[in-house]
């Protein structure tokens, strides 16, 4: 007997294809693992055994008929609950959408299904993806599998925790300001935000339309690459006008050496206020790993990085206010009864349906887009966006990849950061990438000596060079000898595979 949580997505797909086990056996093992672990993790908002067993049966039937199997055939996956999947509710962890039934399936989810993936459920998140700890979910908290008294990060906290707890080898999250990379860092798993436009956003509930990007969580870089092949392999999505063609095989150059390549780092960031000694040590470990493999470390500067948080907290809330205006209680979402006028009904429905942080972000966005304020902040933020974009462009003339922290610190305790503006600083190392659109990936680097919690590094690449970004991530994973592992309290707990 083997525990399915010890298998990567790649190994599961290979085992199913070779007949070592059936997709149905894997699906049952995943559902057992979820059943056994969920009471202590809370990563899921819905578990979907019927969808999972149906999909698994189709894979097994296809194999029995000798049909060619997809690259993810039989691999259990879960997706963040802001992604539509027919047969599930898409709640965005909000009372507003508590009963919202997905009318169609998001392209990113459909592409995983087309590759033979088996959908086991929808994962918890900060409400409408506003947050860095998953504490703003309207339904329940998600515990960090490495220490259940601590947050998993956010906003895709459920997707990160599900992978770290060994409930599923692969999940999807979305990243508007760090919502894949930061929870990946806090849960000790790989989390990739591809370049904006690489993955279709069709069917993903919008937060910041010029910032949002979907990407995978996995325990290995190879599994993230496998997921990317499924997500982008079919080319651009005609249903998303920002979707771009990026037909590359992410597995093809994954093991390439990085010898002679240039890795940029920003000395001032290493001394940044709030970056804990453990995270500094992780940065040094990553730098050593690259030099050991013959890469050259190059000092760079991103002079306008200190304005990134401010620019983000203008652009993000402004776009969120615009996007969330659609939740007026009429076509979908919570509707307050007994209101005399449309305006009253809308204001009352939104007051009841949205939680505190969702209200705060929309209020901030409404203010920033109001007459007079718009020029001072919104227009200026878009000008700062140009400066930050130019900073990165200049850096990538000199280096192939940039190394920086993903999170200033390891996972914090529930309730530890109660001031919203302090919580916003959790994104200090991640938001600049959403502003410019480039891809970034969190790579786990083992455990901090003091805390015993996962530490990590972030790698940032030029736009649409996500394949090479993963080659660097793989080099770091290989050198550090620290692939993402299932948190020890959960390893082997439920989910036996005969």
């Amino acid at each position: 007997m083997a525990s399915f949580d010890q298998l990567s997505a790649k190994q599961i797909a290979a085992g199913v294809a070779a007949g070592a086990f059936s997709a149905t056996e894997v699906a049952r093992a995943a559902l057992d693992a979820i059943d056994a672990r969920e009471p202590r993790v809370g990563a899921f908002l819905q578990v979907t055994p019927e969808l999972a067993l149906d999909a698994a049966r189709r894979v097994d039937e296809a194999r029995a008929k000798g049909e060619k199997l997809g690259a993810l055939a039989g691999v259990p996956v879960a997706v963040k609950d802001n992604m539509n999947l027919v047969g599930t509710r898409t709640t965005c962890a909000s009372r507003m959408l508590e009963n919202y039934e997905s009318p169609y399936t998001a392209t990113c989810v459909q592409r995983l299904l087309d590759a033979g993936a088996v959908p086991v459920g929808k994962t918890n998140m900060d409400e409408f993806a506003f947050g860095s700890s998953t504490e703003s979910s309207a339904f329940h908290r998600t515990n960090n599998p490495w220490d259940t008294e601590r947050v998993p990060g956010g906003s895709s906290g459920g997707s990160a925790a599900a992978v770290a707890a060994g409930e599923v080898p692969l999940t999807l999250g979305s990243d508007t300001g760090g919502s894949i990379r930061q929870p990946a860092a806090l849960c000790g798993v790989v989390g990739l935000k591809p370049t904006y436009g690489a993955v279709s956003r069709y069917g993903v509930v919008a937060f910041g339309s010029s910032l949002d990007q979907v990407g995978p969580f996995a325990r290995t870089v190879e599994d993230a690459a496998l997921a990317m092949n499924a997500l982008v392999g079919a080319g651009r999505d005609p249903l998303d006008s920002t979707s771009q063609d990026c037909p590359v095989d992410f597995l093809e150059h994954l093991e390439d050496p990085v010898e002679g390549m240039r890795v940029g780092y920003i000395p001032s960031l290493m001394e940044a206020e709030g970056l804990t000694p453990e995270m500094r040590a992780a940065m040094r470990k990553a730098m050593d790993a690259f030099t050991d493999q013959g890469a050259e470390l190059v000092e760079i500067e991103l002079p306008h990085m200190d304005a990134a948080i401010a620019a983000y907290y203008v652009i993000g809330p402004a776009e969120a206010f615009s996007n969330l205006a659609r939740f007026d209680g009429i076509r979908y979402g919570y509707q307050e009864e007994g209101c005399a006028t449309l305006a009253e009904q809308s204001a009352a429905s939104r007051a009841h349906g949205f939680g505190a942080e969702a209200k705060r972000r929309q209020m901030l966005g409404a203010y920033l887009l109001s007459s007079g304020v718009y020029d001072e902040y919104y227009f200026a933020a878009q000008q700062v966006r140009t400066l930050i974009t130019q900073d990165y462009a200049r850096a990538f003339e000199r280096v192939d990849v940039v190394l920086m922290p993903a999170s200033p610190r390891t996972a914090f305790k529930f309730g530890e950061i109660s001031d919203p503006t302090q919580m916003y600083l959790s994104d200090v190392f991640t938001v600049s990438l959403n502003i410019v659109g480039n891809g970034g990936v969190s790579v786990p680097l083992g455990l901090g000596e003091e805390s015993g919690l996962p530490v990590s590094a972030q790698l940032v690449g030029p736009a649409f060079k996500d394949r090479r970004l993963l080659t660097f991530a793989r080099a770091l994973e290989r050198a550090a000898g620290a692939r993402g592992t299932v948190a020890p309290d959960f390893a082997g707990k439920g989910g036996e595979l005969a």
Partner: protein
Amino acid sequence: MALSREDVRGIADYARIALGPDELEAMTAYLNDTIAILDPILQYDLEGVEPTYHPIGDLANVMRDDAPASGLSLDAALGNAASTRDRSFRVPSILGDGGAA
């Protein structure tokens, strides 16, 4: 200049979010605190800097071929609405004083 509670009440009307008295107080404090962290973008000389509204600079409208294709069915489109009638979304009076829906 700090936002007053009256300012915040006006923003809430604009945002269509009904706020209770306690929420109004907390929201006023929040907005003033958050606006303070936005200061760095006001510190740069941005004269002559072009704005970037979108990471994909040359984004153009994408038009599909003018060919018949099926979209969301009426049932699916109405399926999540709290109130429908005659194959339509049902809403309260738009002009006011129309009585409850």
